[in-house]
Structure formats: C-alpha cells, structure tokens
C-alpha cells in the first residue's frame, strides 16, 4: 500500500481518537492540577418555610455565592499543583499510620482512596485466573461436545455476557438479599436466619463471583476460536507419542493459545480495574468501594449542587496510572514475543 493511501485510510480514526480520547484525557489531567472555587459572601437572611399553623421564619447567617453583573456566579481558578493528589492520597496520614504507635494497615485502609484501591486490586487479580480458567474449561467442553449440541451450548454460555452489568449484579443481589430465593432456601435447610449482605467478605466473594460469571463467556469465545486453529497433526503426533489428555493440553494447546490468554488477561485487567457496576448493583458502599466508584462519588452533585471536580480528575488520573502499571507485565511479554519472531 502506498504511504499516502495508508494515511488517508487511517486519518479519520486518528482524528477521532485525538478528539474523543486524547483531548478529554489531557483536559482531565490539567483539571487535576487546578482548583475552581466559588466566591462566597456572608449574608444575614431571614427565611420562611412551612410550619403549623403558621410558617416558621428564622434569621441566620448564610454563605451565598457572589454573582457578577450578569448574574453569573463568580469563580476563581488557581493552579494548585499536586495539592489535590495530596488531599486524595494523604501522605501524612499514611506516614503516621506506619510510624511507631500508628494504626498500621487498618488506619491506612480507613482512608477512602486506599480502601478503594485495596479492594479494586484484589478484585482484579483474584478474578483474573478464574476468568481465564473457566473460559478455557467451557471452550474445551464445547469443543469436545457433539456437533449438533454446540450451537445451543455456545448460545447459553454467552448469555451472561449479554446481560447489562448493573442488571446482572442486581439479579445476583436479589438472589441473596434478606428474603431472596437462595437465602430463603438456605434458611429453610439450615433453619437459621441468614443475612448475607451484613458481611463485608460476603460482598467481596459475591462481587468476584458475579464478575467471573459475567466475563468468562468472553474468554470462552476467544479461546474457542483459538481451539479451531490448533494444528491437528501436532495433536495426533502427541497422541502417537503417548501423551495423555492433560499433557496434550499442557504442551500443545496452551502454548498455542498463549497469545490469546495474554490478550484476554490484558482486556480483563483493564475492565476489572474499572469495576463500578458491582458497587451500584450490590449496594456495597458501606463495605466495599472501588476506585471508579470513588470518582463517581466525587462527581455526583449533592442536594446543594456541590461537586468535587478536581478530586474526581485526580482520582481518574490515578486510576489510569494504576491500569498502566497493571498492564506492564503482559504488554512486556507480548513485546518480547513479538521481537523474538
């Protein structure tokens, strides 16, 4: 292909990526170093609200935003450097937690950011092997199923992946909530009152279970496609050499699927680190939060319309940094393999 043709074809996607991915990213990065504050003035206000039988009027000093001559609130934006990151990461509190007489790890996990990071990282790393393992198992099972059954089996195994994540999480919550079907059944068998969602660890296990259930079909589809390209001659010669089923899997199939396993791992690390739907669906805010939820919480306006844009920006930059760090090992491996060829 001529160079100019290549650029003509690629240009639209490059432009779109710059506009919709690079530019927002840069703007979030910049926002995380700036702080926009409102300007308040203190005014004594008499306000009346409904009461019985007469309205209740109170006089109080209120902070009110200063409006300019056009009636638009005045704001001040200033460069604060790493200040927002410091507020989020609280290095002093961390140092104190690990100094003599500090609270140690439990004091560290009391800080929202570390609490969220702790759960997000364990969530990501523990689900990863399960997603790959379960996906591979389903793929092998389907591959060995009778041809006429394959279509329906593939269809059924793909279902969890089709369900919208929040809805999937919600349905698992409903199964296990106070009077959910499964809890009621367990209570019937064990004859005692069970409250699954009163325990942090129960949230943790169910959230991970949900994620594996949801994502394994994706791994399965990829691996199943990979299985169709396994060299049959190699397999047959392995059988002739007396390799058992497990040895064929270990020395022929898995090496063949390795690039795909790395690919699935990459995608899963990126997705799981951004876990968010589980927190909403399971209502786990009291027990377990994720980094993405933390960003969401900063961005959600309260009743009075306040939002923490700077902290939200800093939290998203830190989330992105976390993903990049997690992705380095698999990317390194891919690059090495690529160079080796």
């Amino acid at each position: 292909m001529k160079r100019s043709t290549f650029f003509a074809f690629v240009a639209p996607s490059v432009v779109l990526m710059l506009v919709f991915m690079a530019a927002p990213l840069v703007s979030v990065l910049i926002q995380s170093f700036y702080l926009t504050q409102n300007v308040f003035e203190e005014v004594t206000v008499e306000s009346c609200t409904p009461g019985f039988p007469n309205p209740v009027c109170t006089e109080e000093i209120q902070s009110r935003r200063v409006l300019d001559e056009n009636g638009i609130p005045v704001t001040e934006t200033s460069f604060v450097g790493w200040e927002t990151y410091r507020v989020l990461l609280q290095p002093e509190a961390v140092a104190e937690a690990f100094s003599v007489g500090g609270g140690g790890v439990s004091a560290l996990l009391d800080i929202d950011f570390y609490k969220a990071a702790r759960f997000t990282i364990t969530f990501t790393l523990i689900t990863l092997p399960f997603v790959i393992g379960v996906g591979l198992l389903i793929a092998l099972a389907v591959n060995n199923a009778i041809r006429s059954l394959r279509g329906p089996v593939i269809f059924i195994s793909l279902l969890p992946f089709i369900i919208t994540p929040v809805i999937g999480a919600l349905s698992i919550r409903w199964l296990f909530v106070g009077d959910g079907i499964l809890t009621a059944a367990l209570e019937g068998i064990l004859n005692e009152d069970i409250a699954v969602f009163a325990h942090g660890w129960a949230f943790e296990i169910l959230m991970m279970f949900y994620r594996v259930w949801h994502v394994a079909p994706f791994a399965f589809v990829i691996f199943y496609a990979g299985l169709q390209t396994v060299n049959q001659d190699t397999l047959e010669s392995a059988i002739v050499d007396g390799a058992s089923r497990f040895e064929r899997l270990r020395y022929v199939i898995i090496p063949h699927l390795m690039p795909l396993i790395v690919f699935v791992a990459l995608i899963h690390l990126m997705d799981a680190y951004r876990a968010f739907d589980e927190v909403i669906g399971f209502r786990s805010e009291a027990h377990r939060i994720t980094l993405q939820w933390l960003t969401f919480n900063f961005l959600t306006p309260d009743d009075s319309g306040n939002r923490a844009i700077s902290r939200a920006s800093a939290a998203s930059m830190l989330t992105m940094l976390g993903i990049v760090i997690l992705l380095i090992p698999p990317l390194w491996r891919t690059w090495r393999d690529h160079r080796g060829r």
Partner: protein
Amino acid sequence: MLRTLLLASAGTLLTTSAALADCAFENELPLSSLSAGFEAWYAVTDAMAECGNFEAELDQEFRTKQPTGFAADPSLYHIGGVANGTLVPLLNDGTIRPLNDLVEQYGQQLTPNQLITIDGDIMAIAMMVNSQHLMYRQDIFDELGLEVPTTYDEMLQTAAAIQEAGVVDYPIGGTFRTGWNLAMEFINMYLGHGGQLFNADKTPSINNEAGVAALERMRALTEYMDPEYLGSDSTYVQQQFQQGDIAMAVLWASRAGAMDDPAESQVVDLVTMAAAPSAVEGAPPASTVWWDGIVIAENISDEEAAAAFQVAMEGMDAEMVQANNDAAIWLIDGYEPNRLSEGAIANLMGGTPPYPASTEMGLMHTALGDNLSDFLIGAESAEQALADAEEAYLTAARESGLVQ
C-alpha cells in the same frame, strides 16, 4: 375510513376543549417544567397540562439536570419543581426569579405557609410537606397492649417487647442505606439531641457528646432491624411494611399512601401514623420538615413568567387537591387531612425543625453519608467515624471555597 378518522379527530377536539375548560387560564405560550417524578408531581403537572401548550418532564434525577437547565439563556424550563435542598443551587446561581409581583397579581389564594420567603423575596411556592414520622402496626400494638412510643428509649423498649412476642421478622425498619439516607437519619437524631452541625465559621462541630449519643442510639436501633440495614432505602422499608415483615419504622410521610394500596400491601388499614419519637424526653420529634414546590426561571421573558406562574397556580388549585387528596400532605386550601396524614401533622405540631438546607449542608450530608457506616459495621469508634466525617466535610468545604 375517512369518516372514522374524522370522528376520531372530532372526539379528540372535544376532549381537548373539555380539558381546557377545566383551566381558568388559557395558555398561549409554549411552557415546560422539570420536577421530581413522584405521585404528587404527576397530579400537579397533569392539572397544569389542562391549560394547554404545556410539557412536563418528571425525572427523579432532576437535581442533576435542574441547575444547568435553568442556567441556560433562555432557560430550558420555565417551571421547576424543587424541595428545600434542591432550591439551594438555583438560589446560589441566581437562576430563579422573585415571585412577589406575580403572587400579588395572580396568587391571592395562596396561604402564608406556601410562600417560601428569603429576605422578603418570595422565591418559591410550596405545595406540600414531607417529613419522616413514626408508622406502626396498629394490630400488633393492640394485641400486645403496647403504647405508642414518644421517645427513642420507649421505641427500643417497645421493639424489645415485639421481638419477645416474635410476631414479625424484625421489630424496626429504618432507612439506613449508606449515603444520603444514613446521613438523613443521623441529622434527625443529632438535631433531636440538640446538636449544632456547624460553628459560626462554617467549620463542622459534630464530634461531640450529641454526635456520639446520636450514633449510639442509631446502633441500638439497628439491633432490632434486618441485619442488611445498610442497603435499606425508603422503598425497601415500605416493602417491609407492606409484606408484614416489620412492626414500626420512622419513614417518609409520602410513603404512607402505599401502606393502604391493596394492590401491593398486605397490611391495608393496619398501619397507623404518629409523630416521630423524640431523641430526648420533652424535645421536638427527632425529624425534619421538607417541602416541595415550584420556582420560576429567571432567564425567560416576563410574559412567559406570568403565563408559567398562572399555569402553575392552576396546577396547584383546590380542584387538583380534591381529586388527589391522598397523594401528599398538601399545603393548598381544600386539603382534607385524613388518617394517613396524622403523623406528618403531629410532627409539625410538635415543632419539628425544617431541614437546614444550605450550601454547607449539602457537603455535610455527603460527608456524613460516606463515613458513618464504619461505626455501624463496627470498624470504628463513634468518635473516629465523626472525626472522619468532619475531615471529609472540611476537605470538600475547602475545595469549594466555603472554608478557608
């Protein structure tokens, strides 16, 4: 075919004009509103629509859309449905207009209770009040010979008696869901203990005796609740009542109607309303009063504002109230209080304070909602949880420029 079409359109015309006839004011200008989407708002906006040329948007996420929608010039909406809290951002941004002239001209029928006045300017017209009050199962109380609790100590004793009798799964239900709901419970209890949320310089002042007492009281209540109380919001408590799982709860007045809805409730006519218990003997009910009402946008022409105000008045008239008497605790003339409104009225009579909505209150509400559950799950002491909430509030207040 043509004949049917003609007949049909004639029919539509007839109904439209009949509908228009219900409205004393014929509206010529296209108008729109944005409000929350609960029953009372459906009743009011339907009545407004009778004036013609009116489009209502009812959305439970209205609070995120309203400030930006009203800040546009011209404003995206003419009429806004607000409550105590959601009025604050609109006031702060200066995007709603004072209604004094309009009230004088078109609002003669309004009662003083409906005029939300700030520094002499009428900024909103209230239509209904809402408040968290005690709801209890009359049949269970009669059967066990229990008195209606007037303080939280009595409520705990009553709960113990109900638990002893084993007539329900959990004696108490509570809107303790982490976040907004949990913070609301704490604020009720803390104000009920006579606590002040802020110092004069807007710094927080919750880590004190009243704060600890409020938290301890909340934890005592959770002993009698479904152990999954940290996920339990108003709808969940309402369903617990409807399914006969709980015997009493402090719940929003707006949920009272659902108890008597035969389509979803198994306890029709069995739930009685009373004032919220006091936190300490002799104090007002430990709750807050909320109102819902309308505002008119600043960034619209005066003609549009006048038309919008008249349409809103039509929506909030006695006729609408008579047709929808049970949908809310209306402040509008013509409302007939009934069995379901007893609790809210008892709250008001008992001197329940209004929810202290303000910019700093929004930040405080979020800070409390994010930090108090650590105490309830036993991860932290009450003092530590309150200190964390103060710290979170200070961080947010500094970031917004409220506290230096």
